[in-house]
């Protein structure tokens, strides 16, 4: 296991890997979006087509899972940014892993449960907000006892499990991908000299390709489930 670089700010320990990675990806996503939407016209140009396709893709996720029209407009932006952010964070560790000595400097921020839990918590809080906005605090709390009061404990536990499954699924997938990639590169390749090196190279390529696929799927799944949870909160049962 690589050692993280940690610094303390306001007495709180921060992990530099996640901060560097997320900042880098945020910048990349912003610059990409800004570049794609540099010239927005009624007759779409090539770059505009790309960003419109992305927006329609995430809008589609929102519209199929959220029936409430008022929530859709806000969630459109949320889903769009969340999808791009997570997608790019998933891919970061595949082609770029920076190490300084024994210390990790750059890898996928989503291979850290804190990151995924942050986004899952954000989704959870958003779902509370939308639910309260729609039904009022009283109505929202009463929704936990629906359709029958018997389901109250299950509904409460569901909030926790939703949060955990949402975050740990993403974390597990990306973390496992990186661990396997590191294993192939660091353990398998140098184990028996040149023969294993030759075997490890295509294996690493194949696994990297598969990880790109997994990273994209997981980003899609994360956004879709977020929308499902929020959609459930604003729907009348």
């Amino acid at each position, binding site marked *: 296991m690589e050692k993280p670089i940690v610094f303390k700010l306001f007495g709180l320990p921060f992990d530099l890997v996640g901060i560097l990675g*997320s900042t880098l990806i945020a910048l990349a996503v912003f610059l990409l979006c800004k570049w794609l939407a540099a010239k927005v016209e*009624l007759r779409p140009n090539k770059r505009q087509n790309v960003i419109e396709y992305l927006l329609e893709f995430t809008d589609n996720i929102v519209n199929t899972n959220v029936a409430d029209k008022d929530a859709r407009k806000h969630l459109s932006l949320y889903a769009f940014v*969340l999808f791009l952010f997570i997608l790019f964070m998933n891919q970061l560790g595949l082609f770029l892993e920076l190490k300084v000595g024994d210390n990790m400097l750059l890898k996928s921020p989503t291979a850290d*449960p804190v990151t995924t839990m942050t986004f899952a918590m954000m989704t959870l809080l958003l779902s509370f907000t939308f639910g309260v906005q729609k039904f009022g605090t009283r109505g929202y709390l009463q929704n936990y006892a629906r359709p029958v009061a018997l389901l109250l404990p299950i509904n409460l536990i569901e909030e926790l499990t939703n949060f955990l499954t949402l975050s740990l699924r993403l974390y597990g997938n990306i973390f496992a991908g990186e661990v396997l990639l590191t294993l192939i590169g660091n353990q398998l390749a140098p184990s028996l000299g040149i023969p294993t090196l030759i075997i490890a190279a295509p294996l690493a390529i194949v696994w990297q390709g598969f990880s790109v696929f997994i990273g994209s799927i997981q980003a899609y799944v994360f956004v879709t489930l977020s929308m499902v949870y929020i959609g459930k909160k604003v729907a009348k049962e």
Partner: protein
Amino acid sequence: MTFQLLFAAEAGKLYIANAIWYLLCFAILLIAVKHYAWGPVSEMLAKRQQRIVEDLDTAAENRKKAEMLANEREAALKRSRQDAMKVLSDANVTAQRTSETIVSEANNQASTIRQQAKADASQAKADALSSARDEVADISVAIAEKVIAKNLSADDQKALVDQFIKGLSD
């Protein structure tokens, strides 16, 4: 404020404080993307959608209008064709009638002319006959005067000739 790098920190430990940075990062990204990319693009999408709806509406309206115009034109064409047909048949009928009147008039005229000619001929015949009768009478009188040198009155002569001719024609 303490800022210190803790190298060689334990691996596998969770750094919960990172969440603050992630949230901040995401919030800033959300605002930036909304301002620079999502806002303009979704606005343009909505504008385009509205434009397409309007275009479709006007196209449907135009098509309806064109259809109406075509129908009108067709009806006018049909009407004018009918008018032409009527004019033509009217003309035919009048032409027939005129030709009939002309023919009948001509027939009438021809028959009157024929009758006139017949009457004229019989008149002429009668005239010729009477004048010949007179002349023959005169000639025969002259001949008779010369032959018998006896002066008969003209009336006596005439009666004589009449009697003679009557005898001839019987």
